[in-house]
């Protein structure tokens, strides 16, 4: 599994970058090392949405990517305490009332709570708000859910204030993250669970082989999808590599009708 960490602020990212020894990839503007990636989205819904889309588009394959949003949030008093890390189980966008629900499947020992994403920061105390408050989660979820399944969207929030902070510069955000680094690293290990990834039936070699041939012979999108599915069925039933199809691809194709005939010949072979 590859873990993509998103934070809104550089101050939230730095302790994680240091702990994981991530290195900046200047082309993608992503910090990375091995299968760990970190991107900074900026503050607020609009910035976050654009950046999430950009980052996710930079991955060629997303079947093994888990998005982990880590950041500070306002917490309701007296049910949360400063520095406490909470797993978010429900996100409401205050402006639209839209609800987003991450699918929490993996065992963890954090408290859970809902969260409201607001447009402007709440500074007059939690009052009637009985959940966390932040400024990005809803838009991150909304965009990311087009790319990733809901069990691979995880939101961790660290309570930084009781929604009464007038001056953000007074918060020691790196310290709030550092206090929870041990837990964050343990959770990253839990989320590396390969069962959470999309199942790959064909080997990378077979996928590459088939992709190349599909392109060469100019199969249609529908034909290509069906071919991959039939190839998977064949592989599960026989355990044989797809290079066995090489002889079919030796044919020269000049016309659409020849391509379609070849497609049917291969499908027939794969289904026997």
């Amino acid at each position, binding site marked *: 599994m590859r873990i993509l960490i998103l934070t809104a602020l550089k101050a939230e990212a730095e302790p994680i970058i240091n702990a994981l020894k991530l290195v900046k990839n200047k082309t993608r503007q992503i910090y990375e090392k091995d299968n760990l990636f970190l991107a900074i989205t900026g503050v607020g819904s609009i910035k976050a949405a654009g950046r999430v889309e950009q980052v996710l588009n930079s991955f060629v394959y997303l079947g093994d990517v888990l998005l982990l949003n880590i950041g500070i949030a306002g917490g309701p008093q007296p049910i949360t305490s400063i520095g406490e890390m909470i797993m978010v189980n429900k996100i409401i966008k205050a402006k639209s009332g839209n*609800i987003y629900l991450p699918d929490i*499947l*993996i065992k*963890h020992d954090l408290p859970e709570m809902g969260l409201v994403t607001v447009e402007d920061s709440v500074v007059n105390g939690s009052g009637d708000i009985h959940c966390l408050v932040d400024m990005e989660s809803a838009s991150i979820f909304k965009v990311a859910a087009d790319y990733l399944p809901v069990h691979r969207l995880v939101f961790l929030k660290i309570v930084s204030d009781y929604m009464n902070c007038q001056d953000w510069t007074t918060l020691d955000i790196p310290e709030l993250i550092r206090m929870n680094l041990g837990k964050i690293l343990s959770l990253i290990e839990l989320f590396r669970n390969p*069962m959470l990834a*999309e199942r790959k039936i064909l080997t990378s070699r077979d996928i590459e082989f088939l992709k190349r041939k599909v392109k060469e012979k100019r199969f249609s999108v529908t034909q290509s999808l069906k071919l991959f599915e039939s190839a998977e*069925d064949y592989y599960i039933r026989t355990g044989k590599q797809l290079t066995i199809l090489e002889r079919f691809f030796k044919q020269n194709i000049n016309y659409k009708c020849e391509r379609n005939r070849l497609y049917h010949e291969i499908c027939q072979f794969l289904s026997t």
Partner: protein
Amino acid sequence: MKSVNSFLPNFSHLYVEENASDYPLTHELLKRYSNSVFVPIKDYKTVFNRGKQNFQLQKRSMKLILAVKKPPFIYHASSVQQNSGFRNHYYITPLINCLYNCDYCFLQGMYPSGNMVLFVNSNDFFSAVGDKIQKRSFSSEPLFLSVSYNTDLIAFENIVPLSRAWIDYCKQTEDLILEIRTKSALFQPLENITPVQNVLLVWTLSPQKVIDVHENNTPTLERRLKAVWKAIAGGWNVRLCFDPVIIYENWQRDYVIFLKQVFAALAADNIKDITVGVFRMNKGFFHRIRKQKPLSKIYYSRYEIYGDIATLPSEEQKMVREFMAEVLTTYLPREKILFWDG
């Protein structure tokens, strides 16, 4: 090496629809699962119908959703279900999804989620069934109602005694035959109920080899047979269901041994009838499951499409029918054996 289950236990989370929060059943369950995380929701569909859920992963950590069912409460049975000759064949869904996870189950193609939905407004279901009995199309025949079609109600009995509630309802209702289908070994919660003649308890049985490979989380054959035996001894009408018969190398040999085991444990004379069928599924459900690349090999085999149904080629269906008829007629008369006709 000891394997570690990294998934949260079933019902680690209870999602409760706003409308459901005042029902007594909701209060009971919230009390019972007080250690679970409670998440209030507006409509159960916001969690159950979310996009991009993974049914099979969710089966490893099922969540319970409590909701209020809106009409329709009762549905006409499809051609995939065996109607046992009843033309007024309907089903209801007091519970969606199942504690078990059989490879061949259509639920994984029917629903976007592996989580369970319990509808807490049972009285609305009773009223709807009462209405349907009055308005049934073939008034000379009773209404045949499957209450365990999209779930296994008896397996859930220790959590919510819905089977008992439906049996009680049936006891007081004329022109109703109730079918409760199960793979459960749990008969104890029903043991102290006086048998009701218009209730049919149906046990699906399979060879242990099939159970081990394809019927995840279900009780062993031996345990199921004990439950069936208790039901028969208690005076209940019992149907056995060998459906689907799974074809694999040497399946005939295993099914001969299996049927011998079944009829050694149960007196064939005491069984009301038997239904036999092969793997079959609405083709849309089948393709939806296949798309998720399940681990079960069932979805990578070759099937024929007959109308809307993906099933075995007709020659294989015929082979199963002839084989099962031949073996079963050594135990009970042919007229007691019903086959699903593809």
